[in-house]
C-alpha cells in the first residue's frame, strides 16, 4: 500500500533552496539517510529505534510535512513524493491521519472542536451531516475516555488527556493510513492497554493501515504486524515481531530489542543446524541455526534473560548448564530479574516471581540450545 524508497532527509539547508534538487553533497548530515520499506494494507507497521534515529522525520516525510532531500513515496499507486520528478503532494491531499509527538492540539478550540475539525473540513461531498459529526466525535472521545471533557478548552487537560485527544482527532476520520508518533507515551499501562486494544480493533474493523512509532518494545511486539528497527537514520531490520526478537539481524537489533546477554565465541563445530561454540566462560550448544557459520569463525552469542533457566540445584541432564552466583535481584511486578555472575561475566536472568533468589546464593542455570542465538558480527 505504502512504499517508501531510498528516503533521505537532511536538515542542513532547511529548504532554503530545497526546490532545486541538489544531490549528493559531501558533508551533509542526514537525519534519515536512505530508508526503504513497504507497508501492506491492513498492517500495523511499527518504526522502532532509539531516540533521535529519525522515526519522526520519516513519518513527517510520509505525511508530506517535511520535504525529503531525496526519495520516493508511493501510496496505493499514487506517487506522493518523488524527488526525481519534483512531485510533492501537499499534506492535506494525502488523506492521512496523524498523531504528532508533540500532540499539536489546537489551544483555541474545545475538546469537541478539536476532534470535529477534521470532519468539518472534509470536502462538502464527503462531509458527514451535523448529527453524524456529533456522533462520530462523541464516539471517538468515548473510545479515548474523554467523554467527560467534551466542552472543556483543550488546554485545560492533563498531559495524558491531551495525548488521547490527539489520538481521537486522528481516529475520527478513519483515514486509510494513519501515522502515529508515540501516541500512547504519556498514558498509564491500563489506559495504554485499552487504547492499544481499541486501535487494534478499529484497525481490524475498518481495515486501516497504520505506521506506528513507539519506544515501548513490548507494545511494538504485541501490536505490530511488522517492525522496522531503525538506527541512525537507517533501517537495520524489518520483520515480524517474533523474528526481530528471536532472530535479530544485527548486533544493534539484538541489543535494542529487549535485553540480551552477549558473548563473543569461536565456532568449534558445525553439524547441520547445530553449532558448538567456545566462550571465555565455557562451551555452548546452539540448535536451529539457519545460516551456519564457518568453523573457527568468531560469532556473537545472544541469550535472552528469560531464556536463562535459573535453579538452585544443578540438574546435570540439561545442555548448556553453567554455575554462578546471584549478584543482584530486582522485583518488577510480574517478573523478577536476577543478575548472575559467572567469572567476569554478568548474566541477566528474568524469571517468574515464584523464583526469587537472594543475592549471594550459588545457583545453576542453563539455556535451551534453540535459545542460543548466533548474531553475525558486523
Amino acid at each position, binding site marked *: 500500500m505504502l512504499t517508501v524508497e531510498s528516503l533521505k532527509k537532511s536538515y542542513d539547508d*532547511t*529548504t*532554503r533552496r*530545497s*526546490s532545486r534538487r541538489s544531490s549528493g553533497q559531501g558533508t551533509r548530515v542526514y537525519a534519515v539517510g536512505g530508508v526503504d520499506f513497504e507497508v501492506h494494507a491492513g498492517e500495523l507497521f511499527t518504526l522502532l529505534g532509539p531516540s533521535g534515529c529519525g522515526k519522526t522525520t520519516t513519518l513527517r516525510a510520509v*505525511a*508530506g*510535512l517535511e*520535504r525529503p532531500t531525496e526519495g520516493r513515496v508511493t501510496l496505493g499507486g499514487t506517487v506522493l513524493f518523488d524527488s526525481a520528478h519534483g512531485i*510533492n503532494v*501537499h*499534506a*492535506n491531499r494525502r*488523506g*492521512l*491521519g*496523524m498523531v*504528532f509527538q*508533540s500532540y*499539536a*492540539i*489546537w*489551544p*483555541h478550540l474545545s475538546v469537541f472542536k478539536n476532534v470535529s*475539525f*477534521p470532519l468539518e*473540513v*472534509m470536502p462538502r461531498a464527503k462531509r458527514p451531516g451535523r448529527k453524524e459529526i456529533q456522533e462520530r466525535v462523541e464516539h471517538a472521545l468515548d473510545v479515548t475516555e474523554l467523554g467527560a471533557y467534551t466542552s472543556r*478548552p*483543550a*488546554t485545560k487537560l492533563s498531559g495524558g488527556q491531551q495525548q488521547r485527544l*490527539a489520538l481521537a*482527532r*486522528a481516529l475520527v*476520520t478513519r483515514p486509510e493510513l494513519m*501515522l502515529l508518533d508515540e501516541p500512547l507515551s504519556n498514558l498509564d499501562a491500563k489506559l495504554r492497554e485499552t487504547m492499544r486494544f481499541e486501535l487494534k480493533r478499529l484497525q481490524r474493523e475498518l481495515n486501516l493501515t497504520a505506521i506506528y512509532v513507539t519506544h515501548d518494545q513490548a507494545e511494538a511486539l504485541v501490536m505490530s504486524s511488522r517492525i522496522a528497527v531503525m538506527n541512525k537514520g537507517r533501517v537495520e531490520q524489518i520483520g515480524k515481531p517474533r523474528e526481530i526478537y528471536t532472530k535479530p539481524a544485527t548486533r544493534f537489533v539484538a541489543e535494542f530489542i529487549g535485553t540480551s546477554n552477549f558473548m563473543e565465541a569461536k565456532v568449534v563445530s558445525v553439524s547441520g543446524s547445530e553449532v558448538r561454540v567456545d566462550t571465555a566462560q565455557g562451551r555452548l550448544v546452539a540448535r536451529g541455526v539457519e545460516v551456519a557459520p564457518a568453523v573457527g569463525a568468531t560469532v556473537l552469542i545472544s541469550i535472552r534473560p528469560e531464556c536463562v533457566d535459573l535453579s538452585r540445584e544443578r540438574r546435570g541432564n540439561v545442555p548448556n548448564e553453567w554455575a554462578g552466583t546471584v549478584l543482584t535481584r530486582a522485583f518488577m511486578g510480574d517478573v523478577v530479574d536476577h543478575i548472575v555472575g559467572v567469572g567476569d561475566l554478568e548474566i541477566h536472568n528474568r524469571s517468574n516471581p515464584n523464583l526469587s533468589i537472594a543475592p549471594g546464593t550459588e545457583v545453576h542455570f542453563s539455556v535451551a540450545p534453540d535459545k542460543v542465538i548466533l548474531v553475525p558480527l558486523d
Partner: protein
Amino acid sequence: MSLTSTTTPTRDDGPASSPGPEPRSRRKGPAHRLLRRIRRPLSLQGLLVGATVIVVGYLALVPLGYLIHDTFLSADGSGVSLDAFARAYGGDAHAGEMMLNSLWFAIGSAALALLLGTVLAYVQVRTDTPFKGLFFAASLVPLIVPGILYTTSWIFLADPTTGLLNSLLFTPLSGSSPLNIYSIWGMIWVQGLHLAPVAFLLMVAAFRAMDPSLEESAAMSGAGRLTVLRRITVPLLRPAMVSSALLMFIQSLESFEVPGLLGLQNGIYVFTSRIYFVLRSYPIDYGAAGAYAIGLLVIAVIGVLLSSWLQRSSRNYQTVGGKAFRPRPVELGRARAFVGAGVILYFLVTVVLPVGVLVYASLLKYYAAPTGETLSQLTLDNYRAVLTQPFALTALKNSLVLGVGAATVVMLLAAIVAWVVLRTKAPGRRILDLLAFTPIVIPGLVLGLALAFVYLRTPLPIYGTLLILLISYCTRYLPYGMRYASSAMAQMSPELEESAAVSGASWFQTFRRVLLPLMSGGILAGWVYILIVSFRELSSTILLYSPGKEVLSVLIWEQFENGQFTTLAALGVCMVTLLVLLVAIAYRLGARFGLQSDSAN
C-alpha cells in the same frame, strides 16, 4: 480607578506573582502578615513592577486628567458641566454624516491594512516566497514615508484626470481613467497602505512565535491551505489581529492627513475635520476638543474591553509551548512563482510607484508630470538644500536619540505592564491595561499642552530639554507598545517562565533572560514601529521642543511651510533611506537573540 490598586500587583494571589523573602517560621499574627505585605513590594520585582506601574499610570493620567478637567469644567470655571459635549457633537447638521464617513473610512482602512499586513506577514514568515529581503523592506516603506508625502504621491499617481497611472497606463490601454483617488475608496486605499505596516510588524512577530505543528496538524486533518488559515492560523493569532485592528481603527479615526487631502475634494468630510478646526482656532475650545477625544476614548475602551474579552473567554492563544519548535516555512510549490510575482507587484504598487514619484519629485524644482523636458532638468539641488539645512545634523541626532530612547523605554515599560496584565491576578490590572491605552485618543497638541502645564510647574529641569519630548513620545506611543507587547506575551505559554522560576531564576532574571527574548519578536516590532513614527511626530513636538534642540519632524514641517515641496520630497527620500537602514540593523541585531527567526536573513 485608583492608583493604589494598580501599584500592588505583587500580592500573593498568583503563583508567579508572589515574590519576596518568606518567613522561615510559621509565626502568626497580623503584625507579621503586615510585615510581609510591606516587605514584598520592596523586593526587586516589587520595586520594578511597582515603579513601572506608577510610571505608566503617571504617563497616561497626566494628559487624561488635563483633558477631562477641561472637558467637564463648565465655562465659568466652577462645577461640572456637559456643555462641551453639546458644543462638540451638537449644532451641526452634518455631524451624523461626518460620523458615518469617519467610521466607514476607519473601518475600511483598518480592514484593508489588517488584510494586507497579515497576508504580507504570512507570506514573509510562513512561506518560502522568493525575494524575502526585498519584501521586508518593502512592507515597511509606506510607514516610513511621511503621510503627507505618501498621500501626495498617490495623488500624482491616481488623480482622475492627470494621475500618472490613469494617463500613462489606463487611458492608453482601455481608453478610460478608472482610478479616482478622491473618493472614499481612494482614502481607504492610501490610509490602508499607509497603516498596513502596523499590522505587518505585529503579525510578523506573531507568525514567528507560532508552532507550525498546529497548522501541520490541521493540514493532516485534511484541511486545505485556506481552511487552515481561516480556522486555525487566524483564530490563533487573534490577539495580535485584534490589537492591530484596534490600533489602526483608532488611528484612522483620528487622522486628518488622508481625509484632508483626498476626501475634501469630493466633499467627504470626516469627524476629525472638526477637531482640526477646534484645535486651530483661538481660544481653543478645550472642552470641545476633550469631548471629541472622550468620544474616541469610549470607542477605544470598548475596543480594549472587547479584545480582552475575546482573549479571556476561556480561549487560549499560546502558540509557543513547552516543546520546542522551529518556525517552518510552508513550501509554496508551484504557487511560488505566483506569490513571487505577487510580491513584486505589491512592491511595485506600494513602494516603487509612490517612492518613485517622491524620488522623481525630489529631483525637480517644482513638480510637473514627467516629460522629456522635465526629465532633462533633473537636479540634486533639493538634496543639497536638505543637507545644508542649518539644523540638519542636530535634528538628526536628536531625532535618533529620541526615537531610540522612546522606543526602548516604551517597550520595556510595555513588556512589564503586559506581564502584570496577563500574568498576574493583580487587582486593577485591567484598568491598568485600559489606562495605558488612553493616550492614543489624546490629540498631540493637548498632550503637549498638558505636559507643558505640568513641567512648567515642577522644579525638575525637564521643561525645555529633550527629556520633555521623550516623555511626550513615551506617552503617545505607550498604547502601541502595550499592544505589541501584550499580543506577544499572549502567545507564550507560562510554562516557559515557570521552568525558569523552578530553575531558581528570580523574577527579574526570568523576565530578562526568558520572557524578553521570547517576546523579542513583538518587542522588536514595537520598537521599530515607535522608532519610525517618532521621527515624524509633530503635533506635540512643535509645542515642546526648544531652540537648538530641533528634531527632524520640525525640519520637515518647516520645509513644508516654506512651500518647498520638492525639498520635502528629498527629505522624505533621505528619511526612507535612513530608516530602512536602521530597521535592517535592528533586525540584524534582534536576530541574535530571541526566537530563532526563519530564513529571512
